[in-house]
């Protein structure tokens, strides 16, 4: 908790009253990232302390993102509402599972919304399967719910950026990202040392971040 950090992004959360007169300082991007990290760590600490206003703030900020994601993935408003509720109630019950050092609250909620949406789709799929037993004789070809979800979320911009990577890096990213492999599994699959796989992924990450920055600014 630090009032200085909260001054960096007063628009993201109520700023300390003591900072109201503070003149905004030059925005070093790295310091803004740290400020957001700290702010989100503070939100998580407030949730853990039973501060329901923190949950309301998070809802205000990310409710539309989570619902939009769930709605898009499931194609069903009622299921999307259930998924959204589940994501936020779980955050309230287990705020300690969010680690601000690992990533943003937005990505954390997005990942959980996606997982739960996929689970909901699978549940729906199982129900449909029970109702239409004959379909078992004709297993559905093509992408499963997980693949559909991935492709629904993955934007063209990210796809394009990945396609511009050198072949070795692209291969590693595709295995890690699309196939969900760990770095070690990527190395085993490609028959290369783990360190080499990590190095390729690191290089790819740096390139993706630099290439996609402008796109991010346009789309957010």
């Amino acid at each position: 908790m630090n009032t200085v950090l909260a001054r960096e992004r007063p628009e993201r959360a109520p700023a300390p009253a003591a900072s109201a007169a503070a003149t905004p300082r030059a925005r070093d991007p790295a310091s803004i990232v740290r400020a957001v990290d700290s702010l989100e760590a503070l939100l998580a600490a407030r949730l853990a302390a039973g501060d329901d206003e923190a949950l309301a703030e998070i809802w205000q900020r990310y409710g539309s993102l989570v619902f939009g994601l769930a709605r898009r993935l499931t194609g069903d408003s009622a299921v999307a509402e259930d998924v959204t509720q589940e994501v936020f109630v779980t955050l309230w019950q287990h705020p300690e599972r969010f680690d601000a050092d690992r990533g943003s609250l937005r990505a954390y909620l997005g990942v959980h919304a996606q997982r739960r949406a996929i689970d909901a789709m699978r549940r729906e799929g199982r129900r449909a399967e029970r109702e239409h037993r004959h379909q078992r004789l004709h297993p559905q070809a093509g992408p499963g719910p997980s693949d559909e979800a991935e492709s629904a979320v993955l934007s063209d911009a990210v796809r394009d950026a990945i396609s511009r990577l050198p072949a070795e890096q692209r291969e590693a990213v595709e295995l890690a990202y699309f196939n969900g492999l760990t770095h070690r599994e990527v190395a085993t699959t490609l028959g290369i040392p783990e360190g080499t796989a990590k190095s390729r992924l690191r290089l790819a990450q740096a390139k993706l971040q630099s290439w996609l920055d402008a796109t991010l600014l346009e789309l957010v």
Partner: protein
Amino acid sequence: MNDHRSARDALDELRYALAEGNAQRPPAALADAVMAAALAARGAGRPVDDPEPISPAEALAHAAASLGALLGSLGDGEWRRPCIRGLSVQGVVGHLIGVERDFQDALRAPEGREASADHVGSTDPLAHEHARRPPAETLDAWRAAVAGTARLLAGLAPSSGDGERPVALYGLRLGLGPFLVVRTFELWTHEEDIRRATGRGLQPPGAATLALMTSLAVSLLPAALARTERSGEGRSARIVLTGPGGGTWQRGLGLSSADGTAVVNEGPVDVRIVVDAVEFCRLVANRVDPATLAAVVTGDAALARDLFVGAAGLALD
């Protein structure tokens, strides 16, 4: 973003940053449904790691055991180190022996009679006397005094009402339970004083003990504010204490306000304060400067400042 984030984490950041472009406003009723479901799962104000409650007497026993372990580990030279108020570590332990004596007197005193009003003046002779003794003697005397208090407390029959009666000491008049929490505060605070004096790392109490300490401290905020020139009548605060032993309280700040301990009330508040639970306890123990307390304050900053100054003034020293 930290270096150790994986490529997958970075891609997740990208994906969900992009996904914000597809955000869709949820139905208006969903916000209420989400909040209601969340609060049904865990009530507002309740910390997620709510510890198993312990009694004030158990908290005091834990604090005494922790301090005893520290004192038992000190070398002779460390007993002579300067600590607080011009006292050496040994002088502080002598002071604590005096406090045990005064507290026992207060427990034995007829209801309404204050055993001693002056916390420092009453114990200073013992503090200075012990500063000249061999450390082992002081340690033995302190352990004997603590054991005497424990025996006295164990002898208070709950059915007789002894456990409910007010204890009057050092200008405080509190029920026995809250007074034992005050004593827990004191032992922990002096343990930290000695840790600082001897270059040892600080050590917060366990979550269950801290929970008692934070609840008491929040309940005393109207009295704390009354020590400043500001009236708390008609004013209210939301206090969020983070970390183990914390919680969220929303309470009035007037002396006539109902006790808001562990209860979150609806309605607007004048000030919101978010601060680490241990730091808040150090403030109440007057071991953190109110001006530098690492708190996030929203709302009436001047009211928050007065609350911090008043809270630090609660300490007996």
